[in-house]
């Protein structure tokens, strides 16, 4: 009997149940909401975009969510992703509506924060994709970013040019990646340990040099990089705000499709993937496994460095440990995105949204201590990594050093 029950407890059913439960929670919140209150969504220029009656909206969302879950349990949708997407959208919308009861929220602002928060995450994930698709685990994204962030400020302070700063960040990321490559490919050091070494080194070395050399020389805070405005698009109402941003954001948006094409439609990508899946097979058709791994890891380092420059260049100065764990969340985004650039981008957007929402909640003075709110993205990481992800398949030779026969 228990065996029967467990067999029927598929992921589909679990999601159905979860969606129904979420619907019930929303309905419960609706009963507690004050009648006649509206939740407004505003824009800087246009003023109020639309205002929903809080209570009625919550009732509607809750019922819909409950229905979606029930339908999934009863009949099942063709694709689980549809249920997931629908339920997530409903839950998030209800939450926003509940949060803004008798108030207003800046919707374009929320979107912009999401995109901006997702930028370093996406870049970190792309970095990880290059490394891991070639078979080298890279948990040193955090360290490479931190080095990049630091190098950017150092270079901007000395040269006065922000673009040179970005270049310095990219190169520094590449150098750290080269170190990782030497350790893990040539010397076959455990890749996790090699990555950890770089992370620790980054935290210590950047702090040391910053305090000992940079700040005494007055090279601490050269000021932020100027924003980039995409002509025409920036004048679009509501969404236009997204097109006035740090240049790194646009680079990220360009890199996602580029990496996708490289990985899946070019000989380079094909070889990279083969090296990460079955290096010996690649070797027997004349592909140099070590070379492919070295170069891909270094390219990954370049991208991580670029991601790191985002932190310091948009702030205009370097702070200790300013990447504060984003490199690790980028790894989670990469895994969540099943080692694909596009998937990782969307995963990063989810994390970015959690981050943006957390900021808004602090502004709304939700009755939770801000420390708890700041945990939101990380808790989301754990939930997603632990429970929600179905079967993701890492490259088969990920983390295994290659030995020639």
């Amino acid at each position, binding site marked *: 009997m228990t065996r029967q029950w467990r067999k029927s407890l598929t992921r589909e059913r679990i999601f159905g149940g979860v969606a129904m439960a979420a619907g019930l929670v929303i309905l419960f919140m609706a009963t507690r909401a004050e009648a006649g209150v509206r939740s407004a969504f505003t824009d800087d220029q246009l003023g109020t975009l639309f205002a929903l009656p809080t209570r009625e909206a919550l009732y509607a969302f809750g019922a819909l969510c409950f229905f979606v879950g029930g339908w999934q349990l009863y009949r099942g949708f063709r694709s689980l992703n549809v249920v997931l997407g629908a339920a997530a959208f409903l839950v998030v919308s209800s939450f926003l509506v509940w949060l803004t009861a008798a108030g207003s929220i800046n919707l374009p602002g929320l979107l912009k924060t999401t995109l901006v928060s997702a930028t370093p995450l996406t870049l970190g994930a792309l970095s990880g994709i290059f490394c891991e698709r070639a078979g080298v685990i890279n948990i040193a994204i955090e360290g490479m970013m931190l080095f990049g962030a630091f190098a950017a400020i150092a270079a901007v302070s000395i040269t006065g040019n922000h673009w040179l700063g970005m270049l310095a960040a990219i190169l520094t990321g590449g150098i750290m990646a080269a170190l990782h490559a030497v350790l893990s490919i040539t*010397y076959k*050091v455990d890749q996790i340990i090699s990555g950890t070494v770089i992370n620790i080194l980054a935290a210590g070395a950047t702090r040391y040099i910053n305090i000992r050399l940079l700040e005494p020389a007055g090279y601490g805070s050269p000021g932020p990089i100027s924003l980039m405005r995409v002509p025409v698009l920036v004048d679009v109402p509501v969404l236009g705000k997204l097109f006035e941003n740090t240049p790194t954001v646009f680079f990220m948006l360009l890199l996602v499709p580029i990496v996708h094409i490289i990985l899946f439609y070019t*000989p380079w990508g*094909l070889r990279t993937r083969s090296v990460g*899946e*079955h290096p010996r*097979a690649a070797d*027997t058709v004349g592909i140099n496994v070590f070379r492919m791994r070295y170069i891909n890891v270094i390219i990954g380092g370049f991208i991580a460095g670029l991601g790191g420059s985002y932190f310091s260049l948009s702030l205009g100065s370097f702070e200790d440990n300013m990447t504060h764990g984003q490199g690790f969340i980028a790894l989670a985004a990469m895994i969540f995105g099943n080692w694909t650039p596009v998937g990782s981008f969307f995963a990063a957007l989810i994390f970015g949204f959690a981050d943006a929402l957390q900021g808004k909640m602090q502004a709304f003075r939700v009755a939770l201590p801000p420390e708890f709110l700041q945990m939101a993205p990380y808790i989301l990481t754990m939930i997603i990594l632990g429970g929600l992800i179905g079967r993701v398949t890492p490259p*088969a030779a990920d983390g295994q050093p290659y030995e020639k026969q």
Partner: protein
Amino acid sequence: MTPILEIRNISKRFPGVLANDKVSFSLQKGEVLAFLGENGAGKTTLMNMLYGLYTPDEGDIYLNGQRIDIESPNDAISHGIGMVHQHFMLVPVMSVVENVVLGDETQQLLGVPVTPFTRRVQAFLHRVDPRPLFQHRLAGPYQLARKALTWALSYLVFFALVFLLLFLDRTFAGMTIALFSLFYLLLSFLGGRRPSLPWSKPGRGRWLQIGIALAAALLLAGLEEALGLAGVVSTVVEGILRAGLIVAAAYIGLWLLLGAYLLLWEGLNFLNGLIPLGMRSDAKKVAAISRQFGLDVNPYAMVSELPVGMQQRVEIVKALYRQADILILDEPTAVLTPQEAEELFQVMRSLIDQGKSIIFITHKLKEVLRVADRILVLRGGRMVGEALPKQATEASLAAMMVGREVILTVEKERVAAGEAVLQVENLAAVDERGHPVLRGVSFEVRAGEVLGIAGVQGNGQTELVKALTGLYRVGSGRARIEGVDITDASPRQVSELGVAHVPEDRVKDGLVLSYPIYDNMILGSYYRPPFARGLLIDEDAVHRQAVDLVQTFDVRTPSIATPVRNLSGGNMQKVIVARELSRPIKLLIASQPTRGLDVGSIEFIHKRIIEKRNDGAAVLLVSAELDEIMSLSDRIAVMYEGKILYTVDAAQATREELGLWMAGGPTHPLHGGETLERQPA
């Protein structure tokens, strides 16, 4: 006629072994040349040299009468040599066409094929490859300069650090030294190879150097303090440092120059690799090759979803796509069912008909006699004989392979079967994804008989054996040993009932590889006297047992303390057989007991199994080798998709009939497609 390929006096040495000793042979165009030999006879080494995975220590290779060098698979491919490896070199998560073109892709830009251009770029880049410059290949002045610079620089760095430490910035120098030392320590602890920092070359000299440098620095410091020679000392130090800077600049300049060249080169290579794939035209090419040679491969299929026989064809297509004229097939039939092997032989025929030549490696005698035009036999790395299939017999080939007469047929007198020892009723089980792997298996094995279970790998035999030995959860049904229910019993309960288990995967399930032989010999009985004495293990008893078993079971090993990891496959298997058969047993469950072993070891293990049977034990033999099943068994059961389809008395079984049942039975089932069982006569 000049042979298409000729090998003259090739030798290859590995540490401690002479893998190939002056091997010579020639391959004619349009010929199937078979290589026979035991495991470790040097067949695969020889082929790996032909394919550029190893380079020969001496000897020459001639292609169409011209001497060639094969240093990498790329060279072999460009000379028209292709290889189908024993373990397929395919990426499972990629499509057939992706696997085929990997490393030799067609490229197109905006729909225009640009492969000729990219090929030319590749060829050019190959010519100006800077990597040899980094690989110590250039002799003469460059090497010398490099060595001198490295030497000078290493001492200067060391000197500068000591100087810094003593006179200028203690923290900074200390930090640097500490960091480098830490880094070095980490590497030496974690890494496989010990990198050597210039000033930490191992050996006594290092301490001497460090001592001298320290003394010199201290002396300088002392002089300055004591004699007031501040200016002089500083000048000297400054001079040394300046000279050092020049040397360092030269050194770094050299490397920067090389590095820049390398970067440019790699960058061009990378850019060349970014021109998109022309998958569609490649797929057409693959389909065309497949049609031409009757291979029937779907270019868009995912490799992981193809059956093994089809994967092998993908490997053949891979070689043909690279215009191979000579195909090396390394033990191609080891993984195939008899039917699939038959199809492979047809493919080989069609390849020969179209002018290809084939080198075929195997240790199965029957196949060699069927498909080869000429047979070469290797033993101990040497060529020991050549035979034509018409004049050779299985026995003569086996004798050549092993170096003595081998009894190929197992001699066994008929023993009257006794009481049922193992009774299995309707056993069913599912795998971790919930798919049924055992679908109601019933049979019994009686004392003094061998029941052979034939079947293509992956039809539930593995799970059946695991279920019977307590290693797999049973869904329903029952298994009993002499009346005692062992369904879902623990492995120890099963073994206590007198069951010996020779597992299918000796490396994973049969042995603890890092343990010495003597510990592996008592893995199932360490907790009982005479090996256990109270809470401790009686080392002497264990050693005595190991010495005894190593002798009786002819395990070839330097000592009983050798970790089993270092033994050959045949000797590993003998260790397992020795352990399992040294106990008094009622039932022997042997799964693929001779997989991958050579004729000599097979003969030995077969003899032991029959001995046990003659002593009155029941034997359940699971094997994918039809010959093994037929020569050892008293009764044969054929397993297919988790069911026993067919049971027959061994004396009445024919290969053809068994092969048919292994593939699922005749197309017209006799009893409405349900389980068909023909009980022994």
